[in-house]
């Protein structure tokens, strides 16, 4: 039995006084992890083409990009913040890769630059939202504008370019790595997932992340340094968003600084659908993964039903509002009173 955030073994609870609303929390977490399965069944029934290796892989590639973008959103929400700079960071990485590659830069050099810029964005987000007591909503919004503007200034608005072939391969549904028939993007996502969950569950940092989100004042007194936690959270988020931005370059259609724009709504949707509390202190990236799969399949479903992009937006909006009504009325609110 571990001391993870997820709630404990029901057999132990039997001998204890009735815990508050524990059963409902348990039930809703089962639902969260079952919902991608249910959605997949619905999808295969309505859109038969999905039920093939290529069909599943194209879903997973789409999910990988959203999944990477949503790492930062999940952790930001878990510490009681939010990250609005994710789309701009995606756009930054996307434009840097394509323009610099077209100018003849080597790929490792480009990656190094993207990493440095990402760390700078994350550090600035973390420092500003800690030291001056600014709300992360404002800080990351400002940062988003700063990043997008800087990219446009640096490239003179000329954001088109060229893409290394292996990135195109990485996001191809028929791509493979070391002979395994899984695209590199999906492998990258799975590796990230493993590391993120390990950090959440087995590291001192992970525990401090939850503590900060749960009660900042108490966390300070329990020797947590909020600045350090925030800087790491926003930096990890920026790095993963950049990875998503690089992968997006592999899709045809050319580079754009605004290529990340849909990911503001979709990362928040994935977090909320996963049921991570917007109040912070609880949740896990595993839930977000369920949310990512559900939203990706939902969008595919709408496309399959030949619903246009405008109507898709309406449907997504309705879906998210419905979900928030179901489990957005947080048990933590009640427990904190």
């Amino acid at each position, binding site marked *: 039995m*571990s*001391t993870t955030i997820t*709630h404990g073994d029901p057999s132990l*609870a039997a001998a204890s006084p009735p815990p*508050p609303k524990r059963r409902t929390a348990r039930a809703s977490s089962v639902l969260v992890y079952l919902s991608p399965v249910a959605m997949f069944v619905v999808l295969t029934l309505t859109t038969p083409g999905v039920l093939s290796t290529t069909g599943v892989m194209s879903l997973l590639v789409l999910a990988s990009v959203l999944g990477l973008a949503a790492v930062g959103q999940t952790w930001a929400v878990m510490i009681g913040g939010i990250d609005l700079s994710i789309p701009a960071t995606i756009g930054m990485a996307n434009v840097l890769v394509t323009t610099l590659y077209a100018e003849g830069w080597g790929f490792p050099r480009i990656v190094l630059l993207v990493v440095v810029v990402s760390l700078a964005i994350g550090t600035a987000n973390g420092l500003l939202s800690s030291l001056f007591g600014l709300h992360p909503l404002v800080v990351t919004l400002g940062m988003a504008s700063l990043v997008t503007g800087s990219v446009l200034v640096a490239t003179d608005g000329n954001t088109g370019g060229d893409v290394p072939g292996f990135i195109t391969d990485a996001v191809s549904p028929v791509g493979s790595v070391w002979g395994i028939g899984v695209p590199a993007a999906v492998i990258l996502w799975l590796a990230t997932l493993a590391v993120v969950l390990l950090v959440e569950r087995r590291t*001192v940092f992970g525990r401090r992340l939850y503590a900060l989100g749960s*009660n900042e004042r*108490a966390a300070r007194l329990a*020797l947590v340094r909020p600045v350090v936690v925030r800087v790491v959270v926003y930096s990890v988020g920026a790095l993963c968003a950049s990875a998503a931005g690089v992968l997006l370059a592999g899709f045809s259609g050319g580079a754009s600084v605004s290529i990340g724009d849909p990911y503001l709504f979709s990362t928040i949707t994935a977090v909320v659908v996963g049921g991570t509390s917007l109040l912070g202190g609880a949740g896990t990236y595993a839930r977000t993964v369920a949310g990512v799969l559900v939203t990706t399949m939902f969008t595919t479903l709408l496309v399959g039903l030949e619903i246009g992009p405008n109507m898709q937006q309406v449907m997504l909006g309705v879906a998210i509002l419905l979900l928030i009504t179901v489990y957005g009325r947080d048990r*933590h609110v009640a427990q904190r009173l």
Partner: protein
Amino acid sequence: MSTPPLEPAVVELAGITHRYGPTVALSDCRLSIAPGEVHGLVGENGSGKSTVVKLLSGIMRPTEGEVRVGGKAVDLRSPAAAQRHEIVTVFQETLVSDECSGLDNVFAGTDGIFRRARSGRAEREAAERVVASLGASPAILQSSPHHLSLAERQVLTLTRALVRPWKLLILDEATSALDLSTRDRLFAVLADHRREGRSVLFVSHRMDELEILIDRATVQRSGRTVGTVGKDEATPARLLSMMSGRSDAGEHHVRAGARSRQAADVVLRGVDLSLVAQAPAFDLDVRRGEILGIGGLDGQGGSHLVEVLAGVRPTASGRVEVDRDGSWTRVTGYRQAFRSGIAYVPGKRQEEGLFPSMTVGDNLSMATLPRHARAGLFRSSSVLTRVREEMTRLGVVPHDPSYPITGLSGGNAQKVLVGRWLAAEPDVLILNDPLRGVDLGTKRDFYALLRELTEAGTTVVMLSTEIEELLTCCDRVAVCQAERVFDVLEGEDLTYDAVLAAMFGRHVSDEQSSDEQSSDHDTHRKVTL
């Protein structure tokens, strides 16, 4: 005990009972304020004074009983309703908004929804007159209160009350923020109002102020009204004895005396310590292996003192030093204090202690997790073993580390919080009012635990606002009053009456207190003035 008022009361509380959930804050409270009198209201923490003030200010409504104004039952449903009945209140906290000028603060709430563009000339003149009568400069009305001193801010809140039409002015520890000259001016102003038939309900911990000002006083103890006494009877000695009611001094005296420690072996000390700006400096020694109690009424510096000792709060001046293997190390912050062997259990459990979304095990292990980790990865088994050990030692129910912390009772949650710091095996454990709102069983467990810890060589500093608790478990008690340690009591001097007197800034004379210990109580106690 009670002297009937000569005229019909301005304001009267008749048989008031007030409950917060299952807690009875006020039980059958009787208070009658005559026209033109200054009526003192005294009692320890938890005696129900603030509940009385809140009921009269329209902040809360009584569960049972009647509030009468001019003989008629009224419903003070809101502060605005209290004001319609011409009851105004000034609180200890200087409630001033920095966002608007002093004048706007004074007249806040008098305008309608559509704010007047500018306060009228009449308003300004009225406010200036009051400010001047309190000896302050009318300039404080013009600027933002941001730059004003505490006393000047309190002048603003007093002005806010005095410019309104009032029959009863409630001063709830409102003088503690004032400097002496302003206070004396206020008393003179109040004397004038009194002659005009207005009344004052004066809540204060300062016996000297009560002596100067009041015509009668009502004493509260544990939510009950002990009685009302006239000016002649309302001596500090009489009031203190009415507040204390009973005493267990004899019983505690034996144990406390037997456990006196060597004065030489000091483990933590405050040198020339000043808790807040301009507060008097004092020295304080904490001896190795003792339980030092920190007593005092709320807001008199006790909480500041433990925070300063733990490095959570900076000193206004002076220094705190801890003994590290024979040399004195200055305490500069709580992280550094922790590395020097000091652990601090914060006071407000919900705000400063618990992580509501986490499990018991996570809450308990938070501060010591790095000790079970290599390269940032902790070993769950090692953490859990330690968590279970502490839960067993403290008797946390249920004995389940994966239980949500919010499912525990207050007492058990408090045990988990103490366990978080015990797991660090500190040399000095500083506890900020750990037993507030905790059930009796948990309290008894705690007393035993603290004994056990000190026998193993740990030093304990514990803040408590309850005198009995201090007497039950402490070797010495430092009583804070007016942001300083007023007196440190130990051995034969550590009695209920001595602690109570010190809370109000008095010394019980030695010969008197030793007499008292053998006799039975509710008689007068002599107090040196």
